[in-house]
């Protein structure tokens, strides 16, 4: 029995599948893999890469925090934001990475009060995940589904 999965954000449903064989999820306590018949679980998500394994291959997504619940092979992901690999703008993510790196290392001036190091670190983390997800997509060439 495969898992049913829906990944939703406040703005839209990002992914809905009922043939999920395996699910790799970044939780705040570390990366976990969910298989069918998993014990009921509630966990908070961190910024990271999520991989949904379906019969036609893996679907990589960038997840920016949120919450996951699994009950009776039904998985709900309430994401703060989630993106498919092909929705990610590589150039923009790279620019964001450089900008936040610069801020952390003190190369790019930090506008007074507007941006602090913590925000730059979070932004760096997000852009790195976006790039990783984006590149995984181009490496495997597996079509993603919306």
């Amino acid at each position, binding site marked *: 029995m495969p898992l049913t999965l829906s990944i939703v954000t406040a703005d839209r449903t990002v992914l809905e599948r009922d043939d999920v064989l395996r699910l790799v999820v970044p939780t705040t306590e570390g990366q976990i893999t969910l298989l069918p018949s998993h014990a009921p*679980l509630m966990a908070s998500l961190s910024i990271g890469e999520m991989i949904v394994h379906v019969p036609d291959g893996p679907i990589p997504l960038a997840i920016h925090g949120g919450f996951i619940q699994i009950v009776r092979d039904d998985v709900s992901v309430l994401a703060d934001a989630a993106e498919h690999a092909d929705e990610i703008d590589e150039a923009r993510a790279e620019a964001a990475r450089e900008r936040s790196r610069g801020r952390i290392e003190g190369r790019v001036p930090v506008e007074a009060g507007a941006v602090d190091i913590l925000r730059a670190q979070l932004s760096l983390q997000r852009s790195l995940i976006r790039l990783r997800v984006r590149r995984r997509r181009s490496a495997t060439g597996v079509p993603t589904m919306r």
Partner: protein
Amino acid sequence: MPGAGAVRAIRDRMRAVSNTAKVTRAMELVAASKMRRAQDRALQSRPYAERMRAVLAQLSGYTVGADPDELNPLLQQRTVKHFAIIHITADRGLAGGLNTNMNRAAASLVLEHQPNVESVSVLPVGRKGRDFFRRSGFPIIAEFTNLGDFPSSTDVFPIARIVIDDYIRGELDQVYVAYQQFVNAAVQRPVLRQILPVQAPEGAEARGTDFIFEPSPAQLLETLLPRYVEMQIYEAVLEARASEQSARMVAMRQATDAADEMVSELTLTYNKARQEMITSELLDIVGGTAALNA
């Protein structure tokens, strides 16, 4: 007896009214299409809202009976000294009684709370409500205008941030949200709902399932509760936007109908006046000829 001037005046008026009808008809069509899009947005956010409610109902079941002091601050009931209302209205008018009704409903809630608390403040979202509360002189915490017809969650979440921070700091003890609920294209209903302290959603199959929590239920609540507040405000804004467009659509249709009716009445008057003018001219001519022949 109407002269040529009166006849021309009626004709000008007909032209003006039928131009107005053209404008209102166009506005009705625009509002109808925006309404569909706004409804769509509201629909798209619903799965998140539903799952969030279900999860929170289950999760809060695990904190029932906990020491009130250890309860998440967003769930703690306090004596209400500082009351606030997030008041959601449209930025623009021409929407029938929509904004007026909302202002009236919010004002009566505010007046009802005022005698029992130390302070009442307003966080208006939308220009119509802001102008109303500014005129009545209530303290305004922050204002959000020009969010556009289709605001996204990132436009709306800062509103939640403000009230949550104020609530945790103890500057606010109770927060309501006021918005027009979209019932259907013809009906909108003003809704006033408490969002802080959070009232956990009903329907908890509390402790029915033996969950593994990572991290603890209390920590999960700490991340989820602010999301829940954000989501409720976002939901309210989306509903309010759909209501605004539908109210405008109906108001513009009524305006168009009224204008069309006025044009047909004016046409009657115009024809009658023109006929009278011709008749009187004829009478003049006939009278003149008779005088000559006499």
